[in-house]
């Protein structure tokens, strides 16, 4: 660690007021506080109880929790590509993973460069400390989009969400909506052809640097939710749990997501109440809507399948529990999570136009989270007022 510390110590004089590179102050600040816990604390005079870890350390934990899903997602990209090319039995696992990593890496880079770039510019412009919120959003965004999303479209969507979902509201911690989901919503409504449908959206088709295979254009791969609209699902449950199915990059494997969930719950970063009630709401609504006829198609999804298909598990673990946009009262978390589960399954089953309802459900409940909190707080006040009046 010492050489890094020395490097920052050497740079510091140049970025202070009047230094040569003052314009890059927020940039250096951002990296320094990311690498080392800053030794400044809040000023005396007020009573504060602080945990030893600050928000940059919390963000790092979330990024670590996302790693299993990301790494599996990379492997699955290679797997789906080889499967589509019909050469799966001859492929080595490492080749599959390397190909997937090469396909996913540009998206991660674009997401971070565009998002952090805007954050740094805004921080410098407003003369604020650099905000760390994008550390997590930047890795979440590539994980919730199909592998074939063009990079320029991704860049526009990331810029849109950082500016309009975050900076306009005042930056990290002030946003009403989850920026990663706003990115996805922007892609979904602006460029529907790259986000939905089974015509080659979910499977990488070109070989990269000699790895992977070129897949014929006629190959189609539908996600289980895409198949559900036709009334018949051919995906095996075990594949959906392991994650070897087409889907957005990070969302397919329930096992990998569960590993992340364990870390988040163990460190206490995500609330088990929110997480549990999302699954409970989804299961309940899934059970109620089993076999319902929508149009002339009978809904083929069983209650537990809702929880393992598509982005449900990913959204429940990493999106619904976002401490900024979710409900903050303890009772409110149950209500908030439960309604996400219910709305997500309702959209999935009752609106064939939107096979994936998780994004819309979480965004909708983001909007209602303050109202949920308000009701919880108000009912508590009323209860205590009654007790005092006795």
């Amino acid at each position: 660690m010492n050489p890094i510390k020395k490097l920052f110590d050497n740079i510091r004089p140049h970025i202070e007021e009047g230094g040569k590179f003052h314009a890059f102050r927020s940039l250096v600040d951002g990296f320094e506080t990311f690498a080392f816990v800053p030794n400044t604390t809040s000023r005396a005079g007020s009573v504060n109880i602080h945990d030893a870890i600050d928000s940059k350390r919390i963000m790092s934990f979330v990024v670590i929790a996302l790693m299993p899903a990301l790494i599996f997602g990379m492997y699955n990209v290679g797997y789906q590509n080889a499967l589509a090319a019909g050469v799966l039995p001859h492929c080595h696992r490492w080749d599959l993973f390397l190909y997937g990593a090469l396909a996913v890496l540009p998206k991660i880079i674009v997401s971070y460069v565009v998002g952090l770039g805007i954050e740094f510019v805004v921080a410098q412009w407003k003369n604020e400390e650099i905000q760390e919120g994008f550390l997590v959003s930047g890795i979440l965004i590539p994980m919730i989009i199909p592998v074939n999303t063009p990079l320029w479209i991704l860049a526009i969507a990331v810029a849109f969400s950082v500016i309009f979902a975050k900076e306009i509201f005042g930056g990290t911690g002030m946003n009403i909506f989850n920026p990663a989901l706003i990115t996805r919503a922007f892609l979904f409504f602006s460029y529907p052809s790259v986000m939905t449908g089974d015509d080659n959206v979910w499977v990488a088709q070109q070989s990269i640097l000699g790895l992977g295979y070129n897949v014929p254009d006629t190959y189609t791969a539908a996600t289980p939710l895409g198949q559900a609209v036709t009334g018949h699902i051919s995906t095996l449950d075990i594949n959906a749990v392991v994650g070897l199915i087409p889907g957005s990059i990070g969302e397919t494997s329930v096992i990998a997501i569960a590993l992340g969930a364990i870390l988040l719950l163990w460190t206490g970063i995500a609330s088990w109440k929110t997480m549990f009630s999302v699954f409970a709401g989804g299961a309940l609504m899934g059970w109620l809507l089993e076999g319902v006829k929508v149009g002339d198609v009978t809904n083929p999804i069983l209650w537990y399948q809702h929880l393992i298909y598509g982005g449900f598990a990913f959204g429940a673990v990493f999106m619904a529990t976002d401490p900024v946009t979710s409900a903050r009262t303890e009772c409110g978390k149950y209500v908030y999570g439960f309604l996400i589960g219910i709305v997500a399954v309702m959209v999935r089953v009752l609106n064939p136009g939107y096979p994936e309802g998780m994004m819309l459900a979480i965004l909708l409940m983001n909007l209602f989270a303050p109202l949920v909190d308000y009701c919880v707080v108000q009912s508590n006040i009323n209860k205590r007022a009654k007790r005092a009046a006795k």
Partner: protein
Amino acid sequence: MKLFSDENKAAFSSPLNLNNPVTVQVLGICSALAVTSQLKPAIIMGLSVTVITAMANLVISLLRKTIPNRIRIIVQLVVVAALVTIVSQLLKAFVYDVSVQLSVYVGLIITNCILMGRLEAFAMQNGPWASTLDGIGNGLGYAWVLVAVGFVRELFGSGKLFDFQVIPDSWYAANGGWYMNNGMMVMPAMSLIIVGCVIWAHRSLNKEEK
């Protein structure tokens, strides 16, 4: 009384910029969101509102001393409704396709806040010439915002301007290129954000003068 005195000039020019009905007073937003998915209807709408505001201002200003105060809103409404009907019929006669596109929004000019606002705030107190200038100024102030929003929405939403393909066909993904139209630009939701951006830009340009 000079025709182009400073007050008259201000009545015309201030709504174009510093006292713009859309970006500063945030009036007439509803139609600004609804008719701006293409340039042509946006321009026709802007011109219609300009004509109606100018004429209504003129008529009300001429009548201002005879209108009983208690029923002035009804009188204003009758004048505006008559003018809107005339414009609506003219549009149907000469640019039928645009009038179909604008559908109810021409009729809804009656309820446009800019109109009632100008009649109440200006025409009831000022002479006919100044009122006409004020009406034209406010109509044009509304029109330029509509044109700006319509320009962005049509260009990025359908790759066209005035129905003329601006972005080359060969760029499109369907023809082997890389480009795709932004579907959200055609939805009213996006025009809300673009109007917001116009307001943002306009206000930060005029920061010192406030």
